[in-house]
């Protein structure tokens, strides 16, 4: 903080410079900002996985400041900024106890309703059960075959890499109710709560996710504050996770080079260790 003694010194110093600089400042008319067209970006944006976490930009979601729900990149369509970090979410609901002291932080946690953003459901206009009403013979034993549909999700079901060949579709997808997932104990799990399933194998990651060390959150920084928790499948595609832990995305533009300079001009200055 500022001590009065230092303040006096600062004031004297300031006065001196103020006189010198005031002339310059006064001359400085506010440049009438050249207002180009709204560059706030695309209406259709994506969060972490391109092709799986799309959402639509809505205007004036926070009227007080005229904020949209999100601001998106005009070059990549990536969501860059949240006007409302809880837009399109629902309470996380009860979490199984875990025997660590992270219990109790979930009261204000919210998650995005995953099923509203699943491309397959959106494109077909129906839930999974609309096409897959009940269990059939193919779901009964661990006998993967080439898929007739959904190759865009799993290109070769006989060589599913997740679990390194040890698991197949119906170890995670519920054969009895295609709108849900299922864990190895037969417990039905919502597609919106994949952490309950993933956590049964990836225990350490699950624990770190519950503590807030793994994964992403938006909202309030305080412990126990209202936060949106990103769930597993919002960042990882379980069908291709062996290929890419995180699906590569297009980066935003690099900083502008100083006028008249090229990238090569800085080659000489780049470091090779030490000073």
């Amino acid at each position: 903080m500022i001590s009065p003694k230092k303040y006096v010194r600062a004031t004297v110093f300031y006065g001196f410079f103020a006189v010198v600089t005031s002339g310059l400042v006064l001359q400085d008319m506010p440049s009438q900002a050249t207002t180009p067209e709204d560059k706030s970006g695309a209406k259709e944006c994506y969060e972490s996985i391109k092709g799986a976490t799309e959402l639509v930009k809505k205007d004036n979601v926070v009227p007080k400041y005229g904020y949209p729900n999100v601001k998106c990149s005009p070059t990549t369509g990536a969501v860059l900024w949240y006007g409302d970090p809880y837009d399109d979410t629902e309470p996380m609901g009860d979490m199984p106890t875990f025997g660590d002291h992270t219990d109790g932080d979930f009261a204000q946690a919210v998650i995005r309703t995953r099923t509203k953003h699943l491309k397959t459901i959106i494109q077909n206009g129906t839930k999974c059960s609309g096409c897959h009403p009940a269990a059939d013979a193919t779901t009964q034993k661990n006998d993967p075959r080439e898929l007739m549909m959904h190759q865009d999700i799993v290109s070769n079901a006989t060589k599913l890499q997740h679990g390194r060949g040890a698991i197949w579709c119906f170890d995670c997808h519920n054969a009895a109710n295609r709108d849900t997932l299922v864990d190895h104990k037969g417990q039905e799990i919502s597609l919106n709560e994949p952490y309950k399933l993933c956590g049964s194998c990836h225990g350490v990651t699950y624990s770190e996710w519950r503590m807030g060390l793994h994964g992403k959150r938006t909202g309030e920084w305080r412990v126990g504050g209202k936060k949106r928790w990103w769930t597993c499948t919002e960042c990882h595609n379980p069908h291709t996770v062996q290929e890419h832990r995180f699906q590569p995305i297009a980066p935003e533009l690099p900083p502008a080079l100083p006028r008249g300079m090229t990238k090569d001009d800085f080659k000489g200055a780049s470091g090779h260790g030490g000073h």
Partner: protein
Amino acid sequence: MAEKQMESVSTQKERNEVVADKRGFLRLAGATLGVVVAACWTGLAITKSAQKVEGANTRAHSVDEELRQQQIMAGKKMVVMTQEEKQKMLDRILRNHYRTVS
């Protein structure tokens, strides 16, 4: 004669003083004005020339900043802390914080 001369000398002197006074005042006023004008002029000239060379300057400065930044970033020195070092570091930071806010 002498008196008259004296008189004329004194009036001459008075007149001279008056003239001198007026002259002195004008000179002073002129000088003051001159200083003010010069100051204004210089200020304007500085501003104008600053504006004129601004384009070139902005570039020069930013290139300079770029090179500096590159240089600074080249001095990378990353040392993973041990558990003990982390604890000590945290203690130092918290101690300093409490001292500052108290």
